[in-house]
């Protein structure tokens, strides 16, 4: 993947610097960003140095203090905006007891009300809209499960083994042909879309980039490990039923079986994953470290909130009442 297109002053400066030799003196300041879009693409690229990198960027930039400094400035904005929205949506827990956490977390996720993109695809979306949705979704699905992988070494025994049990399934249970990222790649190819990692980043909407960034942010900061797992729990717990709707919509529109299969796999897989994420990962972690309970809900909110914003934005563009 090559560096994406800059989308403002900050990303322009950052990407110009990244094309130079590492060590070149760069003075970058997150404060020069023009707007949320400029911040989102700059942060996205600075995280991407930790995943697969860019062909036109020297790998040593990954740990450049200059890049890390600008990244930290961007993360500060991301986190404060996220926490501000979360404050308006804190859970009303029945108790602080860890025994109630599974139920409270499932209830919190179920009570969240947002626009349903899957429902729209199931019954109304056009082929062109669905193709656009797949391109937008590819920004995450081609690195599906990777952001939670950062958390593994940061966990105690029980939650660590449980997270690996879930992740193993995301990564195809050892079979590359079943790797979820790869199922999506095959689906994109079959649908006539590009399947290389990051192929559609230049057209990614701001909410899509932000959602990607939130996952990397939570995954890469050990202090937010519980939020990363809360995000995972909410993601898995809002997947089976929407995946079935997506599969039905894709079939309605005559999409090839490979892309339908990606969603069908998620109907069954995520019915398992949601139970594992809540009962075997989040609950035991909070049982060991009770002060992490609120972070689990923060992460769950982050998932629900960023998914809503992506859906609302696309539906609005399409002139659909959400």
């Amino acid at each position, binding site marked *: 993947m090559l560096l994406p297109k800059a989308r403002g002053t900050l990303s322009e400066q950052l990407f110009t610097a990244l094309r130079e030799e590492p060590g070149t003196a760069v003075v970058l300041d997150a404060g020069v960003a023009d707007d949320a879009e400029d911040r989102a693409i700059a942060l996205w690229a600075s995280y991407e140095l930790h995943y697969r990198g860019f062909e036109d960027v020297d790998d040593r930039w990954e740990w450049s203090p200059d890049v890390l400094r600008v990244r930290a400035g961007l993360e500060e904005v991301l986190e404060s905006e996220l926490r501000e929205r979360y404050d308006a949506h804190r859970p009303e827990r029945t108790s602080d007891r860890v025994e109630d956490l599974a139920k409270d977390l499932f209830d919190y996720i179920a009570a969240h009300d947002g626009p349903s993109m899957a429902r729209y695809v199931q019954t109304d979306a056009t082929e062109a809209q669905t193709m656009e949705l797949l391109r937008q979704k590819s920004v995450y699905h081609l690195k599906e499960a990777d952001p939670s992988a950062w958390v593994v070494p940061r966990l105690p025994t029980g939650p660590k083994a449980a997270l690996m049990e879930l992740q193993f399934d995301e990564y195809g249970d050892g079979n590359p042909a079943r790797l979820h990222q790869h199922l999506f790649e095959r689906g994109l190819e079959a649908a006539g879309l590009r399947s290389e990692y990051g192929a559609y980043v230049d057209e990614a909407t701001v909410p899509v980039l932000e959602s990607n960034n939130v996952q990397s942010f939570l995954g890469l900061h050990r202090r937010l490990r519980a939020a990363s797992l809360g995000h995972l729990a909410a993601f898995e717990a809002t997947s089976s039923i929407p995946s079935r709707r997506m599969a039905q919509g894709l079939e309605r529109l005559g999409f090839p079986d490979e892309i339908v299969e990606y969603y069908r796999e998620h109907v*069954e897989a*995520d019915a398992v994953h949601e139970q594992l994420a809540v009962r075997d990962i989040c609950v035991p972690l909070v049982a060991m470290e009770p002060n992490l309970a609120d972070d689990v809900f923060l992460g769950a909110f982050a998932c629900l909130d960023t998914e809503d914003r992506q859906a609302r934005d696309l539906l609005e563009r399409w002139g659909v009442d959400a």
Partner: protein
Amino acid sequence: MSAQSADPTPDPAARPVVEERPTIVMCPEGPMLLRGDAVIEDAEGNRHRTTRPVSAVCRCNKSATKPWCDGTHKLLPKKLRP
């Protein structure tokens, strides 16, 4: 008599022992989790082999992908959930 019997009893506080995880788990208001390879025979006598390390077997009887759970239990009123 094994060599182990001579070992001092480990202090549980010093070495937290994680319990063996269960093979079958009944999730409240949800499916039954099943670990490992298994063949399930459904009410019609059809056989289904598990395809993943952990499977979720529907207990609410409303799944569209029986015998596997597809999340439908969450759409049921609470008193109809398992």
